[in-house]
């Protein structure tokens, strides 16, 4: 019997790995940005990519999403290889992306922005649940998307991907340029999503914010993952982290 249990545990641990990236290389035109990225994300985790500006964090997210033209290596999502898949297919497999620049559409009002991403599977949040998370949005439904404040735009950018039923979210610097009270609200949202079973891959410069929500960290530098540790090991790694991030 113990053998069976062991085997079960083994399959569980591999199937629990939602995303596994190995030797990911990516190019913008002629410039080689990612030089072999390796990391994984397990079901229900919040994993944060840390690193300086230009280290390749955003490019990593975009590569997973399939919107970097030239990429090689392996990206497996739920044990399916997606390195060659088109981004619309990747989205339909259940990965949702919230870009750094937020990507709120100026020619659409808030309601249209919110309803834009198609539902890819059942189990997404209902509009009522979304308005419970972000009450501001409900009052601004008829405003033009880009007339919202920066914080509201960020909430809208997160809210619209929660509707789709995707259970794997990639958030690129969701706190950038926002007031502390709004950063707090986004932190609560991420914790809430985690407790509801979402898996989240986060890119952050704001490491203080990341430490309030993340389970694990990977350090990205010059297009490579150079280190990684769990949140519990954070204090032991503080000195290293300061060197990596230059803070």
């Amino acid at each position, binding site marked *: 019997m113990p053998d069976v249990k062991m085997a079960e545990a083994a399959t569980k641990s591999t199937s629990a790995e939602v995303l596994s990236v190995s030797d990911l290389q990516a190019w913008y035109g002629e410039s080689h940005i990612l030089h072999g990225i390796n990391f994984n994300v397990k079901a229900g985790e919040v994993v944060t990519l840390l690193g300086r500006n230009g280290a390749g964090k955003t490019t990593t997210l975009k590569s997973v999403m399939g919107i970097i033209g030239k990429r090689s290596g392996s990206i497996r999502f739920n044990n399916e290889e997606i390195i060659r898949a088109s981004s*619309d297919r990747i*989205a339909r497999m259940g990965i*949702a992306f919230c870009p750094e620049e937020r990507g709120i559409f100026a020619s659409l009002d808030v309601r249209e922005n919110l*309803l*834009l*991403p*198609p539902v890819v599977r059942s189990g997404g949040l209902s509009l009522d649940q979304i308005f419970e998370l972000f009450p501001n949005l409900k009052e601004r439904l008829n405003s033009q998307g880009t007339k919202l404040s920066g914080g509201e735009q960020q909430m809208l950018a997160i809210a619209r991907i929660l509707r789709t039923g995707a259970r794997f979210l990639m958030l690129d610097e969701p706190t950038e340029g926002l007031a502390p009270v709004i950063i707090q609200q986004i932190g609560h949202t991420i914790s809430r999503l985690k407790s509801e079973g979402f898996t989240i891959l986060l890119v952050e410069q704001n490491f203080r914010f990341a430490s309030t929500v993340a389970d694990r960290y990977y350090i990205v530098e010059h297009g490579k993952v150079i280190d990684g540790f769990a949140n519990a090991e954070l204090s032991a790694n503080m000195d290293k982290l300061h060197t990596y991030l230059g803070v």
Partner: protein
Amino acid sequence: MQALYAQLLVGLINGSFYALLSLGLAVIFGMLNIINFAHGALYMMGAFTAYFLLNLTGIGYWWALIIAPIVVGIFGMILERTMLQWLAGLDHLYGLLLTFGIALIVQGVFQNYFGSSGLPYAIPDYPQIGDWRGLQGGINLGFMFLPIYRGWVVIFSLVVCLATWFLIEKTQLGAYLRAATENPTLVRAFGINVPRMITLTYGLGVGLAALAGVLSAPINQVRPLMGADLIIVVFAVVVIGGMGSIMGSIITGFALGVIEGLTKYFYPEASNTVVFVLMVLVLLVKPTGLTGRAA
């Protein structure tokens, strides 16, 4: 006064064609970022498709209104898949040159077989209900005589234009289109097949041109160069209205038709140039056009 009303009606008719064509150009430009110089040739193909349907298969006007836009739309989608899609991200000039070349080839082929003179296409005389003979004949409105077919063209064009506006501005599909015009990469990353949407959009724009071609066949006859003559004016209309706006292109299309008609009554010598004079004025004052956005 009779003459004034008659010229106003002519203006509204021309305005209908301007509106349908510039609307298609605006839709295509918004999504593909291509200035579709083949538009006039595709308009001509719409008229010829109606002509072929009638003379080769006996299929009449009413079916041609549906079939010709679909046939020409499919031809357009093949053009987009095989050629235009490779121009994405390049300068406007490439799209302009390619579509201009396509227009010359298409018009050349039709001229080779049909010369330059017009082929007749009759106003439909069915359905016949009581005294009505389809769209033939006219109604005396008291102040003027209105040929039924001309009234039909104006009203039907207006309905099609408004339906297209509604589709783009008020529906979920339209929201995809508008969003993809702004940021196609992100829309695709939400799970929408943007390349297919681009192909269908080109088909829609081209279909509108073909529809205008069918509408025009009974009025202007079916000629290989019917589109080449018209498209120059339509591009002036587009420049005046601005490329970006759907409603802007509809309103500008009808308005310039009417202005042209009024000029024919008040100062006929200028009627062929008034649109171009307006274009120059608009370019001097507001280079993005009256309703357009900066490129």
